[in-house]
């Protein structure tokens, strides 16, 4: 599909595009981000510093990025998806060579004004590339082994680089996002079954390799798995995070302890309270009402994306939208499952709420792509 295929009559141009933006989605994003500001304000002990204010500035920057991306026609994004993917790969390699070490893992490239986390970029670039891959690929060939192998390799290369950092959480998110795009694009379910079997085999291998010289994961990752399986085993050591998170959430009860009244987070019992574990503060201060409200907002964002994708006849656009939505979905689902003790602590932030620059900017950029697909969707009969 090329630029010429868009009928000028039906695709908005110039400033008219503003009218065609998916404004409901924008409102939802602002709502979620605002919940984040509130929480960051609270965990700082009722202060805009050091987290809430920079987060707001970043969100504004993110909104601007989103609008800019939204106005760029979708074909441009499809055409540069390969380039974006290669840039992301290069950055991942670079971070391996020259990245800053934070929290025991090498994840960032320091750009001076912000720390760029190439794995975030990688997630979206991978979704873009796969969407354009399936857009290009003849529908009949989708399930042929070779044409399945290609996206598999495209996924595994950045995944391996991310895992090497090591950032298991992002690697898993990448895999899930890519899997969703492939699934929706029509790859035979048998492949997924096969991958499932392979995956469980791999998990077995990973667990069996523990303590041997070919150990596949880092010790801390094994430890986190152990603790996930039995958090009570080490309440003051590594199981601490999960126990404290559950205490914070649980003590919130139905309606929470009230804004700024959470003792768990304010007294610093919570680890990384402003990043991965921020959901616990929400749970503590706003209770079940607060947590379900946020969950509903998130679900609505995904829903609006899916709705937009289903109404989009352009294959690249719908695949991209679904891929971004799925990535977003797994973001918050894994994070929530993690802090609620349903999944091992793998280090996935709560999207748009957790304090963090690159994740926010990249996500807003991704929603820019979704908006672009929405605005520039083919119209007509």
């Amino acid at each position, binding site marked *: 599909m090329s630029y010429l295929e868009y009928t000028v009559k039906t695709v908005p141009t110039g400033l008219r595009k503003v009218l065609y933006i998916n404004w409901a989605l924008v409102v939802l994003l602002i709502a979620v981000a605002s919940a984040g500001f509130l929480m960051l304000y609270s965990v700082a002990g009722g202060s805009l510093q050091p987290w809430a204010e920079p987060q707001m500035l970043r969100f504004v920057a993110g909104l601007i990025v989103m609008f800019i991306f939204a106005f760029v026609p979708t074909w441009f994004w499809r055409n540069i998806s390969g380039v974006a993917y290669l840039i992301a790969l290069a950055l991942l390699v670079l971070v391996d060579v020259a990245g800053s070490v934070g929290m025991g893992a090498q994840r960032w490239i320091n750009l001076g004004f912000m720390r760029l986390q190439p794995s975030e970029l990688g997630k979206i670039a991978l979704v873009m590339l796969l969407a354009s891959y399936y857009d290009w690929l003849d*529908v009949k060939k989708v399930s042929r082994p070779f044409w399945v192998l290609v996206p598999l390799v495209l996924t595994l290369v950045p995944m391996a680089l991310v895992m090497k950092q090591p950032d298991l959480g992002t690697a898993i998110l990448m895999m899930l996002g890519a899997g969703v795009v492939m699934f929706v694009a*029509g790859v035979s379910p048998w492949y997924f079954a096969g991958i499932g079997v392979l995956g469980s085999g791999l998990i077995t291998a990973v667990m069996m390799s523990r303590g041997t010289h070919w150990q596949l994961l880092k010790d801390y990752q094994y430890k986190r798995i152990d603790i996930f399986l039995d958090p009570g085993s080490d309440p003051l050591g590594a199981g601490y995070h999960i126990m404290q998170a*559950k205490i914070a959430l649980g003590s919130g*009860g*139905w309606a929470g302890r009230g804004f700024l009244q959470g003792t768990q987070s304010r*007294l*610093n*019992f919570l680890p990384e309270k402003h990043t991965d574990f921020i959901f616990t503060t929400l749970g503590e201060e706003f209770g079940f009402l607060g947590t379900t409200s946020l969950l509903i907002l998130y*679900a609505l964002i995904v829903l609006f994306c899916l709705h937009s994708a289903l109404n989009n006849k352009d294959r690249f656009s719908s695949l991209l939208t*679904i891929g971004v939505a799925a990535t977003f979905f797994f973001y918050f689902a894994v994070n929530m499952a993690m802090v609620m003790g349903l999944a091992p602590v793998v280090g996935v932030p709560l999207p748009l709420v957790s304090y963090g620059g690159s994740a926010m900017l990249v996500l807003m950029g991704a929603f820019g792509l979704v908006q672009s697909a929405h605005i520039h969707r083919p119209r007509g009969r």
Partner: protein
Amino acid sequence: MRRSPRDTEESSRKISRRALLLGGAQVAIVAGLTARMRQLQIVDSKQYRLLSDKNRINIRLLPPARGLIYDRNGILIAGNEQNYSAVILREDAGNVRDTLDKLSELIPLSQEDIHRTIRDVKRHSPFVPITVSDRLTWDQLSRVAVNGPALPGISPEVGLSRYYPLDEDLAHVVGYVGPVSEADLKDNPSPDPLLQIPKFQIGKLGVEAKLEEQLRGTAGLERVEVNSVGRVMRKIGEEPGRPGENIQLTIDAKLQDFLMARLVGQSAAVVVMDVEKGDILASVSAPSFNPNLFVRGISIKDYAAYRDNNHHPLINKAVQGVYPPGSTFKIVTGLAALNSGQLKLTDKVFCPGYLKVGKRIFHCWKHGGHGWLDIEGAITQSCDVFFYTAAQRCGIDPIAHMAKRMGLGEAPELPMSAIASGLTPDKKWKKKYRHQDWLIGDTINAAIGQGYVLTSPLQLAIMTARLASGKAVVPRLVKSVDSVEVPVVPADALNLPQPFLDGVRKGVWGVVNSIHGTANYARIADTSMLMAGKTGTAQVRNITAADRAAGLAKPDQIPWNERDHALFVAYAPFDKPKVAVGVVVEHGGPDHSAAPLGRDALLFAMTGGVPPLSAYPARYRKEIGAEFNALKLRNIEPQPPARSRA
């Protein structure tokens, strides 16, 4: 590339179908998350609310002030002093090594200190404060405090530490404290939470260790609101603890100090005891060690100096050292023979200087022999042959039995470390432990306190006190606890016929006061304080026949550590006994070292100070006066028993 509209249609339909499936899966996941939220926040909420409150409120232990130890007159023996230390918190310090390097520019820190700190820091949680250096001076403490901002994680602290103002004097009795070790915790399945406090001091030796429970007190509790790293945000409440109990010992610190001064350069032990109550007035083991060094953690060099000293300062010879009692044991042999009926008070034995038993010849210490002697004369002149004969008549078992009655052969119960039980051998013992039959020669050796018999200076004092009082006096060391007197348990009677006791007493009176007595030189001239005693010599090396043939060497020709131990037991005043003493001077030889010590100890105890020269025979006064003037005594005065109930 162009695609047919049909293709696009088909792909669209497929995408829709799959997307709906995906949406369904996502709804299921969201439902699962919601269910989990409900579980945590509604169903189990109460339980987590409880845990949350527990989290917020932390209970901190407030270490109690350790009980003080006083002597019988209120002189402080063990006290608590403020000590200033620098502690490090890893979670604040970041790079521990760098911080310590910076700190070492402000206060003296050895490489050893730094290594130890780094090791301890690694062993504990990041929020447990680790002492980097204690016993800082006020100056050093202020320097640390002023430079606080440049030293992340370092904070100055003020705490209490044990100190012993009398240094060496009572080290063997009172012992010392030290930080809780892993071994201390291992013995104790559910230890006092106080023991978990890093560097908490507990008794390691002596009274400090034996009366640990009383001295320690109980921890106070402070309820504080803390954050997760344990930093105190707010104090909520406080339950004061109970400081340890103050212990007053029966020891007379001045007497103890006097004896320590008298024993400079010697390897000796003296135990002074009240003959009625059993109060231990002094328990001296010279040389001694400085317990303050141990509290601080003794350096390898200092420890090696103590360990390698051939006078063994680390051993408490007064209760732990066991020696053959030598002739002092003749008190026991005499009483045993009398009590068995095999020897009468009037029986006389002829001493030709030796006794032939079977083919063996047993010598008396006096070559020419003593001639005819009754028991009184035999004790006075310490005739060996008389007691060989007496023991031969009654046999070993009554002697062993009498020794037990006099307090030998079993460890007295006192709150001191490593109290030896000594040995009073009998036939059964030899069979059981040596797998040999008892021989007549064993009895004869035992009769004069040689062979297998072993006693500690403490036991010698007890034996003498029992002879003096005629009661089974039991020693005691604790006079009062928190100013409440510990009641004296009246001693049982020894149940020995008065004439027997009097007979032996007359003998020991003669030892000191008769011109024939073996300790006549050590007599007391003041008739109100007359002393009775018994000398003894414990062989360190067997005298072989070859030695005897070669003629006995002069004492000063024998190497120090091969010379005999000199022993002396005594009590005074003779007619109304108050104090008894047991003395062992290791390798003192026969050079009259033990008896004057015993005499001075008794005089000091009776007069309550350095004995007046008028108590001594005129001919010795000048010499003794000079000796006393040369003594380096501490200037110790009792303090008002101010009880630190902080």
